[in-house]
Every structure is written in C-alpha cells, then in structure tokens.
C-alpha cells in the first residue's frame, strides 16, 4: 500500500494521507488531476473494481467533497480518493468512460445534490423523484421537515418521545 | 311441440344439476389440494359466493361488441357441448338432444368456445391478453391432436359416430369398457385430458403468476362471472364425455357423479406434484408420446 502511495506522490499532487487500516487508505487529490489519477490506479495499479461515489456537503466551507472508493480484487486493498469542488458552481469531470455504472452514481448526485457531470449519459433524466421542482433535496440548506409540513397534509396531534429527555426526566427528576 | 318443450325443460334441469355439481367438484378439488399443502382450504360454498359477488358488481367497463361476445361464445361452446351429450344412458329425459352424428359436433364445440374467447379478449385492448391468447391457442391446437386420434380410433372400433350407441356397446360388464377393449385410445385420450383441464403441468396460460391470467385479463364483474360459470359447466361436461366414450357411461346420477369425480381427479392428481411447462415444452410434449399412442390406436383397427 505504501509503495502505491509513494508512486502516486511522485506523479500527482496528493495530500492528507490517512491510513484507516492496513488495507484501506484515504487520499485527497486536486480536482483537475482526479480523473487521470483514477485512470492510473485502474490501469496500472490494478484497482479494477469501482465501489462507490459519494458526496459530503461542507456547507460552512462552501465545498462539496466527492469520495471515490476503488478496490483491488487481487491484492484485496481499498483506496478512497477525496476531491473538493466549489459548492456554488459544482462541476466535476465525468468518469463514465472508465466504468459504465459510474453514470448511475453521477445521475443520482445530479438529482440529489445538483452536481454537474458534463457528457455523462442520461444525466438529466429524473432518477427517483418525479416532478421535482425545488432545490436538490440532499443539500443541507434544504429543510425537509418544513417542506413536508407544507406540501403533505400532516395529521395534528402528533407527539414525539425524545429518548434522552425521557431518560433524563426518569433518572434525574429534580434537575431541570 | 309439447314433447319438445318438456324435453327442453328436462335439459335445463340437467344443466342446472351439472352447473351446481361442477362448482361443488371444483371446490372439493381445491380443498383436496389445500389439505395436501397442510392448509384448511376454502369453504365448500366459496364458488357460489364468488359468483354472486361477480354478478352483482355495480359497475363494469365494456370495450365494444366483440368484448361482450367473447364470454358469450365461450358459454355457447360449453352449453352446446352439454346439449348434445347424453347424460344418463337409458333415460329418455336426460339424454338431451343427442342424435346420430354428435361426436364430431362435440369436437367442433370444444374448439369453438376457445376461438370465440380469443376474439373477445383481443378486443379488450390489453397487450397481455393478446400474449395469453396466442399461448392458449397454440397449446390447445396440439392438445386436441391425441384426442381426435383416439376418437377416430373408437369410431372405427364401434363402427358408429353416435355417443348413445358407443355407450350401449359398453354395457354389460366392466370388461366391456373401452378402457379394456381399446387401451391405446384410452391412454392417448387420458393424456390429452391433462391438457384440456389445464392443471399443472399445462396451466401456464391461466396461472395468475404469469402474464396476468392470460386471456381473461381485462374481463371483470359479470363478464368474469359468465366465464366462471362456463368453467364449472365445461369441467363436468368434459368428464362426462370421457366417461361415455371410455368408461362405460352412467345409468343414474350417482354413477355419473362418482365417475366424473374420478376422471377430474386424475388431472388434479398429476397436477399437484408437477411443476409448470413452458409453452414450447408443452406443445412439443403432446407431439411426442401421445401422438404415437394415438396413431398406433388407429393402425390397430385398420
């Protein structure tokens, strides 16, 4: 694993190397070099299985963090590549020419977060939501509770039991 | 004139008895299959309640004249078969309208019902109905082949085409039955019976887990009621036809009930332990062994 990371360090600019366990590491990469690094990992290093493409919404730093996880089935090691893109103008290069199913992950991210992947096949078709005309719902500035109360008709008389409050009242009834 | 009206009334009485016995027999068979599976099964009176339920639905959708005529054709085929088969041998009342050449007419009515149903279901506009019809007709075409060969064989054997005379030739003792005098024809016809009653392994056309139910997909409320009524009549009438041709006929209603029960039971017996054939498998199955047995049955008598 260390040899692969050293070799990557000589070719690309990577930072923030975290070793989660002996066969799983995280790297952070620049946006322009990400697709070529993934191609290098797939063709030369043997990471031929694409596991997942996921997104974390850092709304305070105004960034989206994309995470590509790849797996090497021969050596049985995983590697995760993190890419930071701008939140206000989220465009990322598409990776659908490397694996065909990446197009589905990119379709989901376009619908749920609004990230554009130019030239990805069938990107603008609705994936799960039909007839959606609001902001992409998985972003953290979308208040889903408020939207649900306004659109769907909630039934009055609903009570919730918060477990921590219930236990606090039960165990420490004197404290407020 | 008076005699014809009395005969007509007796025929209607016979039809009523056959209808009720058909529903009771169907419920009993379903209960037997359920007990085999370890369940209690439906109550015995369930077919009557289902029929009341279907006939008294408040709305129904029609797709045109042919859609309405499809179940009518099918019921016409079933009742037409009933009208020309003598039920009780030797009884003047319950011999219906059988005459000298009725065996060929029976075979015609068998196919006529299925064709009419196909035309009606195609009008329904549902694409799955059309797939179901093409499957059903393909299967029925080859199911009829061993049956027709067996009928020709016993027509040559008994030298007549009238069912009443065939039944008369089988009276006497149990060893006069066609089962013992012409076993090849009986074997071919009993194998074809499995396809006619449409239990497993030949129930792909109408199974609810397949492309939804095949031809009766779009049929509902009273249309489906007519189809189910016809189903009940047709089962008993087919069993009675086989009983007259191969198993000695019946001289009273008790014998008819017992014999038709066991003939229907043969197909249920095979069906409970069998999986389902695909259409191409079932079509080619009938063109292998049953066809050979039928041809042998004819060659013996030529």
């Amino acid at each position, binding site marked *: 694993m260390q040899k692969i990371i050293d070799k990557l360090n000589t070719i690309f600019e990577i930072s923030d190397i975290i070793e989660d366990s002996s066969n799983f590491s995280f790297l952070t990469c620049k946006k322009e070099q990400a697709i070529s690094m993934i191609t290098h990992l797939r063709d030369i290093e043997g990471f031929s299985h694409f596991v997942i493409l996921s997104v974390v919404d850092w709304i305070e730093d105004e960034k989206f963090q994309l995470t590509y996880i790849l797996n090497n089935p021969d050596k049985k090691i995983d590697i995760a590549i993190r890419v930071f893109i701008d939140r206000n103008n989220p465009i990322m290069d598409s990776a659908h020419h490397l694996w065909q199913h990446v197009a589905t992950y990119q379709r989901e991210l376009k619908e749920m977060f609004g990230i554009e992947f130019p030239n990805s096949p069938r990107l603008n078709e609705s994936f*799960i*939501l*039909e*007839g*959606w*005309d*609001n902001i992409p*719902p998985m972003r953290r500035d*979308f208040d*889903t*509770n408020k*939207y*649900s109360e306004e*659109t*769907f*008709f*909630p*039934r009055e*008389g*609903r009570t919730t039991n918060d477990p921590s409050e219930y236990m606090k009242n039960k165990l420490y009834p004197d404290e407020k | 004139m008076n005699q014809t009206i009395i005969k007509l009334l007796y025929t209607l009485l016979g039809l009523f008895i056959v209808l009720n016995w058909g529903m009771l027999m169907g419920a009993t068979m379903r209960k037997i299959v*359920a007990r085999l*599976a*370890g*369940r*209690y*099964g*439906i*109550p015995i009176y*369930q077919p009557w*309640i*289902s029929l*009341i*339920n279907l006939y*008294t*639905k*408040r*709305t*129904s*959708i029609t797709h045109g004249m042919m859609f309405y005529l499809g179940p009518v054709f099918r019921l016409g085929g079933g009742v037409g078969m009933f009208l020309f088969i003598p039920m009780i041998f030797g009884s003047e009342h319950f011999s219906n309208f059988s005459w000298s050449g009725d065996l060929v007419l029976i075979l015609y009515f068998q196919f006529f019902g299925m064709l009419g149903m196909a035309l009606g279901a195609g009008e329904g506009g549902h694409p799955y109905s059309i797939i179901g019809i093409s499957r059903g007709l393909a299967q029925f075409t080859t199911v009829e082949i061993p049956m027709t060969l067996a009928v020709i064989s016993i027509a040559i054997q008994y030298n007549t085409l009238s069912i009443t005379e065939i039944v008369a030739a089988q009276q006497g003792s149990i060893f006069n039955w066609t089962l013992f005098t012409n076993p090849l024809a009986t074997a071919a016809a009993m194998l074809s019976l499995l396809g006619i009653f449409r239990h497993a392994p030949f129930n792909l056309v109408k199974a*609810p*887990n397949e492309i*939804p*139910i095949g031809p009766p*997909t*779009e*049929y*509902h*409320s009273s249309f*489906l009621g007519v189809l189910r009524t016809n189903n009940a009549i047709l089962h008993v009438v087919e069993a009675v036809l086989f009983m007259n041709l191969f198993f000695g006929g019946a001289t009273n209603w008790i014998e008819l009930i017992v014999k038709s029960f066991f003939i229907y039971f043969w197909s249920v017996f095979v069906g409970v332990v069998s999986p389902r054939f695909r259409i191409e498998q079932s079509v080619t199955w009938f063109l292998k062994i049953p066809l050979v047995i039928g041809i042998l049955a004819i060659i013996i008598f030529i």
Partner: protein
Amino acid sequence: MSENDNKKKNTEDRFLAEENKQRIVISPEGEEITINPLEDYFCDERPEIVAPKNKVVEKFLNWARAESLWVLGFGTGCGSIEIPPLLTPRFDAFRFGVQMRPTPRQSSVIIISGYLAVKTLKRVIRSYEQMQSPKYVIALGSCTINGGMYYDSYNTINRLDYYIPVDTYVTGCMPRPEALLAGFNHLKERIKAGKAEGANEYAEKFDWYKANQKKIIKDWNMPDYNW
C-alpha cells in the same frame, strides 16, 4: 395576468411528457393534422355515484361481498412482506375467503401497505380508479395514519385519506399477520353493516381528492379519471 398565465404555462410545460405535447403528425391518409393528446386522447368523464339497492337485497349482497374478498396483488411498501405469510399454512387466509388477484379490474380490495412515495401514489391512484365499484381500501402501518417513521421526508405522504378513501387502518410497523387478519375481520364487519361505500365517497368528493392529488403529483401525464 398574462405573466401569471405564462408562468403557469411554463411549469406545465416542464413536466409534460413528450407524447402528450401538441404536435403535427401525418395521418394514415397522408395529410398533416394537428393533434392535441390532452384533449383528443384523454377522456374527461367523471366517476358517478352508484347507489346501493334496497335494504334487504343489499344486506344479502353485502354479506356475499364480505365473504369473498379479492385482494389486488400490488405490494406498495414495506408492509407487503406481511402478505405472503398470510397465504402459508400457518395463517391460511383462503378459509376467510381472501384471494389474491393480479389485475385491478378483477379485485375489490387494495391493501396500501406502508409508506407511499409520490411516485407510487400516482400508480396506486391509477390502479384504484380501475377497480370496479364497490371497492375497499385497507391501510397498513403507521405511515398511512400520520406519516410514521417518514413523517419528515420530502417524498412520502403523511395522510392517506386525503388522497383515496380508506375503510380500515391497521396499526403497527409492520402489523403481524394476526393483526392483518383482525383488520380483515374489521373490514368484513364494516361491509356487512353497510358503511363501506368508499367508491361513492370518491365520486362525491372527487374534486377535493383530485386537487389534493394534483398538488403533490406535478407530472400528471394521465387523464383525470383513469377508468
């Protein structure tokens, strides 16, 4: 006023499917005609109220309808995993007269098992309107009552009876098969008492139901009443 019209036209155009737009086609005779599928192909009939017959006959018919319930085999949510155990030997539902049918034309009961996403609600409405009257609805689980576990989701509905009329609610998450059988018994008693007239209620308050449905289903590419 024209700005509002333009805005409404814009949002309507966004979700209108390709095959429903107004366009020019060449007819089989060879001439060019303009078709407007929303007017030409879709029927705008409304459901009608079919009143029950007189008291004695209706009582007998209701008894017959309660003894033979044909359920549509459409598993809408996670509660549909409780329906196959009903057909196994342990909880045998056939002895109660309950059978599963594959098409909505032939069934009289639809079981809404669990949450309904907006996508599924469109299909459920289509199936429900194709059923023949009298028809009944059983709602399983707490998601149909007040939204249940998914009350704050952007894609699931909260109250089922604002969209289709409901006869019986069975609480639980998910209700066990015994609870579902108790629900069937409750539905049977309701039918025999003559109170289960969901189809007529749907026809009476058709505009209200349709407004609720159209509020959340924005790509309504089908006729108003899918009979």
